[in-house]
C-alpha cells in the first residue's frame, strides 16, 4: 500500500468540499477518481499534494502521515501531479521542462551552479541524458529544443506527464490527462499510462470512460464531496448508486 486516506474533510466556508473521504492506492495500481463536476476531485488532489490542508483526516503515504507538508515537500517524498489547466514552463524548451521536472534528481545548489560550467558538470550531463531518454520514449525527442508553448495541445499534455515522471515519483496524480485530446491521442495516452504501472502508482481524474475502464485497477466515485462507491471497473459499471449520481433517479440502465 502506497497511499491511504483517512476521513479527509475540507470545508470552504460552511460547505464541505470533501467529507470523510477514505480510499487506498496499492503499489503499481491506477486508481481512477470519477464523479460529476464539483464533486471535489481536484480539491482532493490539492489536499494530497499539500496545496490545501484538510480540516480533518490523515494522509498516510509509505506509512507516514503527510499532513502539513508543502507541495515541494510532498514532491521530494515522491508525490507529484499534472494539472487540468496545463502548467507548463511555456517559455522554456521542451528539454528544459523535463530537466526542471528532474530538479530532485540533482543536488547542485545556487553557489555551485554559479561557479561550475554546465558543460563540465557530470550531474548536468546525467540529467540531460535521462531527460532525452524520457522524451525519446514518448516521441517528443525531435521537439526537444522548441519552446514548450509552441507545441500542439496534445503534445503539451504528454509533455506535462513526462515532466512529472522526470523526478521518478512513486505516486503521480493526473488531473484529466485526456481532456482535449483526440481519439488517437487518447489511445496513445491510455497505453502509456498502463505502461507506466511498472514505474509508479497513479491516481487519475478522468471523464473519458473508455480510458478509465481500460486503464484503472480501481475506481473511486465521488459525489458532493463523499465517496459513494469504490471497486473494480466491472463492479462500478453496475453499481446502482453510481448510475443514480450520473444519470438521475428514474433511468433504467442495463
Amino acid at each position: 500500500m502506497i497511499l491511504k486516506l483517512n476521513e479527509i474533510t475540507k470545508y470552504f466556508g460552511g460547505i464541505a468540499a470533501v467529507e470523510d473521504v477514505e480510499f487506498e492506492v496499492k503499489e503499481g495500481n491506477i486508481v481512477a477518481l470519477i464523479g460529476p463536476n464539483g464533486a471535489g476531485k481536484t480539491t482532493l488532489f490539492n489536499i494530497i499534494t499539500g496545496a490545501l490542508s484538510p480540516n480533518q483526516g490523515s494522509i498516510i503515504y509509505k506509512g507516514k502521515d503527510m499532513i502539513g507538508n508543502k507541495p515541494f515537500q510532498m514532491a521530494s517524498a515522491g508525490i507529484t501531479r499534472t494539472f487540468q489547466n496545463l502548467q507548463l514552463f511555456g517559455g522554456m524548451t521542451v528539454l528544459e521542462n523535463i530537466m526542471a521536472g528532474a530538479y530532485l534528481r540533482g543536488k547542485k545548489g545556487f553557489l555551485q551552479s554559479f561557479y561550475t560550467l554546465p558543460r563540465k558538470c557530470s550531474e548536468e550531463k546525467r540529467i540531460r541524458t535521462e531527460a532525452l531518454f524520457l522524451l525519446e520514449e514518448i516521441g517528443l525527442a525531435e521537439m526537444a529544443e522548441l519552446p514548450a508553448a509552441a507545441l500542439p495541445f496534445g503534445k503539451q499534455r504528454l509533455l506535462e506527464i513526462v515532466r512529472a515522471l522526470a523526478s521518478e515519483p512513486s505516486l503521480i496524480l493526473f488531473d484529466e490527462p485526456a481532456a482535449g485530446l483526440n481519439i488517437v491521442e487518447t489511445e496513445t495516452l491510455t497505453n502509456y499510462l498502463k505502461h507506466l504501472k511498472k514505474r509508479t502508482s497513479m491516481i487519475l481524474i478522468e471523464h473519458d470512460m473508455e480510458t478509465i475502464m481500460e486503464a484503472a485497477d480501481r475506481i473511486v466515485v465521488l459525489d458532493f464531496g463523499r465517496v459513494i462507491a469504490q471497486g473494480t471497473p466491472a463492479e462500478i459499471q453496475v453499481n446502482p448508486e453510481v448510475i443514480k449520481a450520473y444519470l438521475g433517479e428514474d433511468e433504467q440502465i442495463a
Partner: protein
Amino acid sequence: MKKTTIFGIIILLFILIVSLVVKSNYLFSILIIIGLYAIIVQGLGILMGYAGQVSFGHAAFYGLGAYTAAILTTRYHWPTIAALLAAIILPGTIAALIGRQTLKLRELYLALATLGFGILVFIAFNEGREFTGGPSGISSIPFLNIGSFAFDSDRKFFVLVWAVLALLLLGINNLVHSRTGRALRAIRESEYAAENAGIDSASLKLQAFIFSALLAGLAGGLYAFYITFISPAAFSYHASIEFVLMAVVGGLGTFWGPLLGAAVIVALSEILREVVPLLIPGAGGEYQIIIYGIILILLMVYKPEGLSSLGAVFDRSPKRAEQNTNKQ
C-alpha cells in the same frame, strides 16, 4: 555558441580595446559607472527576470556596500580588500534577515516593502551623524589596493571593474543554464508546477534576493574605492528606480539585458545632459528628466520585452544583425 553571444562578445571587446587605446578619462569614468551599475543590474536581473521578484530597494544594498567599505577603511583602518569583502557580506546578511519576511509579499506589496526599506536605509545614512557623516558623507576613502598595487587611476579601475563584470557574466551564464537557473525560471513560469517538481520556491527566491544584494554590495564597495568620497545622495530611491529601469529596458531574463540596460541608461543621461541645454537654453535638470521619461515610455510601449530582444533578430538574419549591434 549562438550568434547573439558571439556578436555580444565582439562588441564588448571592441569597446574595451577602443577605450584602452583612446585613454580618455571621461570615457573611462563613464564605462566604470556602466560597469558598476551592470554588476548591480545583473543581480537584480536574476531576482526580477528569473525569480520574478521586484525590488525597489537595491540602492540601499548598493549604499550599504559603499558605506561599509568607507567606514571600515577610514575609521577602523581595515585593509581595503578586507573592507571590500565586508561590503559584499553585510548587504547579503541584511538581505537574508529581511528577505524571509518580505518575500512572502507579492507584486505591489513586495515593491512597496523594498521601497520602504530603501528609504529607511537612506534616512539612516543621512541621520548617522559622525558614523555616516550625515548629508555631507565620508571623504578621503583610500584607493583599493592588493599588496603594494593600488588601483589609483581611472584606467586601472576600469580594467578591474570590467574584469569583475566579465567573471560575473560567466558565472551568471553558468547559473542560468544549471539546475538552479532552470528552477528559478520554472518558478517564474508557474510557481505551482515548480513546487510540484520539488522546488522550494520560497527558499530559492530568498537565495536570489541575497545573491542580488551581494552583487549590489560589491558594486557599492567598488564605487566607494573609485570615487573615494560618498554621500547619501547617490543611494536614494531614485537610484533604486533607475536600477529597475535598467533591468527592464535591457530586457528581463536575458543574458545581455543588464549590461545593455545599464549602458543605455547611463549613456542616455550623459547625452541628455549635453544636448538639452543646447536645444533649450537655460534648461535645468528637470527637462532632462522629462525627455528621459518620454523615451522610456516609448520604449515600454513599443519594445516592452526590452532592448536585448533586438538581439533575437541577429540569430535569424546576420545582415540585419550587424545594423542592430551597431545601434547597441
